């Protein structure tokens, strides 16, 4: 045991941890422990990410040459559709909430578990069921509708497995709803004594906002894909104009969920980054309330702007203007966050551990992604930009540059807590930099391609656009290497990594005050919170003096 353990572990346990508490298959599959559930999510979500990544590789290889030569157009269409579906519904949406949120939320608020452990397990099984159905459909031949399932192509014309994938997404949606429900209840009722709302770490606030969106939005996509499925099977319905329906209604219903869903895909990442920026500057976050409330504001106002995906779809000009206006408004809370993070660095004591490198990466990439969101929100400009690679670049900047980077940062940050092992800091830094460089090389050229007019979902494109596409593919290779590396060294660390201290970075959060890995019910002793969020001083029970003397604390 290292010196720092004794100092910082106020509430931990020496007896054993959640990993050693039973090793049979049943002890995992029937567990109600949020930490084990999170680990099972981690494994499956990563698998889906790799599959999605392989599809991405196929996309980029095909686009190396202008002609549709490597993949036939029909295959290409399936490839990008499946890439989108796997990445969005089965990777990005559950990524941070179901893994890091699930694991950390109870720890951070000082609870023994989520409020509804059985529902948590149920949500995992639902996710598996939805995932299996989708995988089955992919084996059978896949879908070719685009992840947006626009009607009437999806209801009447496509002869791929729309039904099965649709039902997969329908089922999976309930997993997300149950996770959100569980988080809201947990945050309301399970806080430890002294853990007031404004002492909550911002990660928790971000998850509260995310959960709101999950509960209020996801049911709508569920019913919408159900209607598509019904329309497909019985050939009646409300979306295909050939039988009297209205395809634009589908778009309204779809985006009512799917725009707010993009905030499901960024708010948790913003939560992670708030943690990282503050903790690795060892400084209280600047404007805590503003960051907390801007999360809620994003969640709420995010519901008012869905029509910005439909500027050229045939909705009314008036609606286009209203949605454009509100899109601008919803960008402001993100701006507030951005500035507060920057201000937090001011006069801090900044270290450059791997998680912090990811946080810096997030700041830069989300900045570009968000600002290009404004380009797309400006109606007149979007008429030119919509359905081009500009949009593709925008959303990869926010989703990959934002959420995925934040997710990686979070995984590295909490890895010692989750596994009790330290990863290699050297490889961590190398891979963080490779990801950053590769990412920009992949997607920045796509902005230019987009402005030149290259439409998205194209298997073949005019020759004059090849140069930039080659850059993009080259970048994707670098990015791919950068992303494979963590898989390798993190796995490696599970066996060979140095044992992690309970609080390797001497941080004040409750999750750092229990042992690494934490015991089954998280704390042997019910914690009582007497400090504000992000207070690094010794008076809050952190024996920094002793920690400084021992140099084993960080690996």
């Amino acid at each position: 045991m290292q010196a720092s353990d004794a100092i910082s572990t106020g509430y931990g346990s020496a007896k054993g941890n959640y990993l050693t508490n039973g090793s049979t298959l049943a002890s995992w599959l029937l567990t109600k422990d949020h930490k084990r559930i999170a680990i099972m999510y981690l494994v499956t979500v990563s698998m889906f990410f790799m599959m999605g990544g392989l599809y991405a590789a196929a996309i980029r290889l095909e686009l190396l040459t202008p002609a549709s030569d490597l993949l036939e157009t029909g295959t290409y269409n399936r490839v990008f559709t499946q890439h989108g579906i796997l990445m969005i519904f089965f990777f990005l949406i559950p990524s941070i909430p179901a893994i890091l949120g699930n694991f950390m939320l109870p720890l951070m608020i000082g609870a023994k578990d989520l409020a509804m452990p059985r529902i948590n397990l149920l949500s995992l099984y639902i996710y598996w069921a939805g995932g299996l159905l989708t995988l089955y459909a992919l084996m059978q031949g896949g879908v070719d509708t685009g992840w947006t399932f626009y009607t009437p192509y999806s209801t009447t014309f496509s002869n791929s497995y729309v039904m099965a994938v649709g039902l997969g997404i329908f089922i999976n949606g309930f997993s997300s709803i149950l996770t959100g429900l569980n988080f809201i209840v947990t945050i309301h009722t399970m806080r430890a004594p002294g853990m007031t709302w404004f002492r909550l770490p911002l990660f928790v606030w971000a998850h509260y906002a995310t959960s709101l969106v999950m509960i209020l939005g996801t049911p709508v996509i569920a019913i919408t894909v159900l209607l598509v499925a019904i329309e497909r099977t019985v050939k009646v319905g409300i979306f295909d104009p050939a039988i009297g329906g209205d395809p634009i209604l589908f778009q309204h219903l779809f985006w009512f969920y799917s725009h707010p869903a993009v905030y499901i895909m960024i708010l948790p990442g913003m939560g992670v980054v708030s943690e990282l920026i503050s903790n690795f500057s060892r400084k209280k976050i600047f404007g805590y309330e503003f960051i907390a409330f801007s999360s809620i504001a994003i969640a709420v106002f995010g519901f008012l702007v869905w029509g910005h995906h439909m500027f050229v779809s045939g909705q009314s000009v008036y609606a286009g203007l209203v949605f454009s206006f509100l899109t601008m408004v919803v960008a402001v809370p993100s701006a507030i966050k951005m500035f507060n993070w920057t201000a937090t660095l001011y006069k801090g004591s900044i270290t450059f551990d791997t998680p912090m490198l990811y946080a810096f990466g997030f700041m830069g990439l989300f900045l570009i992604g968000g600002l290009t969101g404004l380009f797309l929100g400006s109606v007149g400009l979007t008429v030119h930009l919509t359905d081009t690679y500009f949009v593709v670049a925008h959303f990869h900047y926010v989703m990959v540059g934002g959420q995925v980077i934040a997710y990686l940062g979070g995984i590295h940050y909490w890895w010692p807590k989750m596994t009790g092992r330290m990863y290699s800091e050297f490889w961590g830094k190398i891979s963080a930099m490779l990801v950053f460089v590769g990412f920009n090389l992949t997607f920045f050229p796509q902005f230019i391609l987009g402005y030149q007019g290259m439409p998205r979902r194209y298997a073949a494109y005019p020759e004059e656009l090849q140069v930039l596409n080659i850059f993009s593919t080259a970048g994707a290779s670098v990015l791919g290497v950068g992303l494979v590396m963590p898989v390798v060294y993190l796995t490696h660390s599970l066996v060979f990594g140095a044992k992690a201290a309970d609080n390797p970075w001497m941080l004040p959060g409750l999750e750092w005050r229990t042992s690494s890995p934490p015991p089954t019910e998280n704390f042997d002793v019910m914690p009582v919170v007497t400090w504000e969020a992000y207070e690094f001083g010794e008076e809050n029970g952190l024996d920094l003096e002793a920690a400084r003397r021992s140099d084993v604390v960080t690996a």
Partner: protein
Amino acid sequence: MQNTSWVPFFPEQASTVAGMVDALYFYLILVSVAFSIPVVVGIFVFAIKYRAKEKFATPEEIHGSMVLESVWSFIPFVVSMTIFVGGALVYFYQYTMPENAMEIYVVGKQWMWKAQHGTGQREINELHIPVNTPIKLTMATEDVLHDFDIPAFRTKADVVPGRYTYLWFNATKPGKYHLYCAEYCGLNHSGMGGWVYVMERRDFDNWLAGNASGQTPVEIGKDLFEAKLSCASCHAGGPQQRGAKLEGLYGSTVKLVGGGTVTADDDYIRNSIINPAGQVVEGYQPIMPSFKGQVTEEQLTALVAYVKSLTPNAASAPAAPAASGGPAQMPAANAAAAPKGGK
């Protein structure tokens, strides 16, 4: 914006709205840079200046500042409003239909664009228009959503089944510009496009009057087959193609669905084009669309000549001049896609 031709990788500006869109674009780039500089410089400066000098330090606490928060909420808000207003003005321009525009009907179908001019002239995957003339497209689709997109004009609009949608532009520069389908529409979405030809008024009138290209029938046929009529989208000869293989067809004996056989002569090819459902080749689905009414007699002759040229030793007898070119009507699709649900 005046001249952007020096900017690398920048699309041509060829319509009245293009300059406005580009101006908006440059304004947004300016805004982005203006907001990025404080953030990026801030990150770099702070990161370097305040890098940890001591392990586990506890720097002085700064809680926040109401003044700063107000400033950096208010400024982005105001700036974003200018973006909104700019966008709205351009949008109005893009979608307010001019009064005396020249009207062209456009029908999208999987996977081709069919256009018909006021004079009855038809074209497929091409659009010939005069320069400096407002053009209004009235668009319909026979099947799924498509999107008529001309990047050089910086404008596009979805074509929605069950109703008409409209698009207008005023081209400012003669030339040849990409035409795309920008809304995903299935298998050959990326092949659904062609060219927009902007011509001087006089050239356009000539074009309307007749095709003065001076190509041989086989060349014309090849052009039609590969680009204008998109025959190649089904007949390119790959393993997964949906149409029959045409190489070596001429003079061979073709097995038909239902048991019959027929020798592939000029008439058979001709009929296969204008009435494909009449003789369906064994092993294929009767999905080939009829091109009746879309190809002129000359074009038909040229197509037959081209298909024959795919069989190396075929006798080069002139195509039999049969006459059955139907009267020019609106593209069949227009009637089919008459407004059902729209309003």
